């Protein structure tokens, strides 16, 4: 007798956890860690609104928008890759994974360009409280992004040979990559848009 929820979703498949459950523990744990960073940032920001607003005005909003859309497109590509891999079209799944990695690289390059521009303009880690949070959050995210490239490498390796192709592992890697994406969605709103 099992109590597992097996109600069929709209697409007719049996409900199941995407990827390894361990990855979901990691996603939820990391979300709490990032939420605490975000909360502390918002608390100090609300206490010193004018100083934060002055420093924030040096950011380029459209650059943040392009970075976000690139990472969202990368996430979208990996979501396609997971679906096509499940459907058995591994060549297309691999192509979508490469597109995802390429768009991740676009984000990476834009981020580095943005840092260089800010540093050249004299806005460094010690310039102001706002820029301290800016570099802290973007660098922590950047490290997660770099680990994400390892996850994409594992995913592509899995899809490369008929001897491997472990769908659960593909989904696990994809789950990590999407997490990097949604952390950025939050960081973008908090650093570039919040007033």
């Amino acid at each position, binding site marked *: 007798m099992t109590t597992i929820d097996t109600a069929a979703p709209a697409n007719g498949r049996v409900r199941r956890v995407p990827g390894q459950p361990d990855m979901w523990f990691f996603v939820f744990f990391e979300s709490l860690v990032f939420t605490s960073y975000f909360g502390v940032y918002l608390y100090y920001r609300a206490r010193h609104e004018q100083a934060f607003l002055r420093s924030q005005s040096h950011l380029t909003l459209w650059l943040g928008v392009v970075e976000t859309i690139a990472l969202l497109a990368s996430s979208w590509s990996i979501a396609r890759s997971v679906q096509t891999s499940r459907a058995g079209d591994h060549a297309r799944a691999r192509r979508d994974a490469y597109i995802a990695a390429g768009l991740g690289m676009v984000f990476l390059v834009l981020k580095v360009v943005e840092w260089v521009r800010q540093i050249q303009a004299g806005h460094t880690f010690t310039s102001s409280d706002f820029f301290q949070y800016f570099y802290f959050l973007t660098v922590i995210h950047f490290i997660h992004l770099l680990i994400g490239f390892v996850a994409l490498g594992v995913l592509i390796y899995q899809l490369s040979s008929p001897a491997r192709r472990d769908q659960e592992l593909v989904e696990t890697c994809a789950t990590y990559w999407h997490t990097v994406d949604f952390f950025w969605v939050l960081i973008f709103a908090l650093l570039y848009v919040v*007033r």
Partner: protein
Amino acid sequence: MQTKLNRRLLAIWLLLSAITVGYVWIDRSANHHGARTASTVVTVSAVVLALFKVRVIMGEFMEVRGAPTLLRRLADLWIVIMAATMLGLYFAGKAAA
């Protein structure tokens, strides 16, 4: 089947990107005579919209929509925890300012 699913993913990406571009409009409308001013409405809207995007990413891209009830409930609970923590501390900071 496959084409239909992929079209859904395209629509999701377009929705997420449209909200992202919408932030530019929010940012512009928050300026008073070209000057940047603090705004609780903008701050709360930006956080809520970002969390909505996170929920869509989890539901659609991360396939939580088709996952067992426990994972779906957990994902929703986490969105609520994130919202409560972020907005709670923001308002606490406003009160302490």
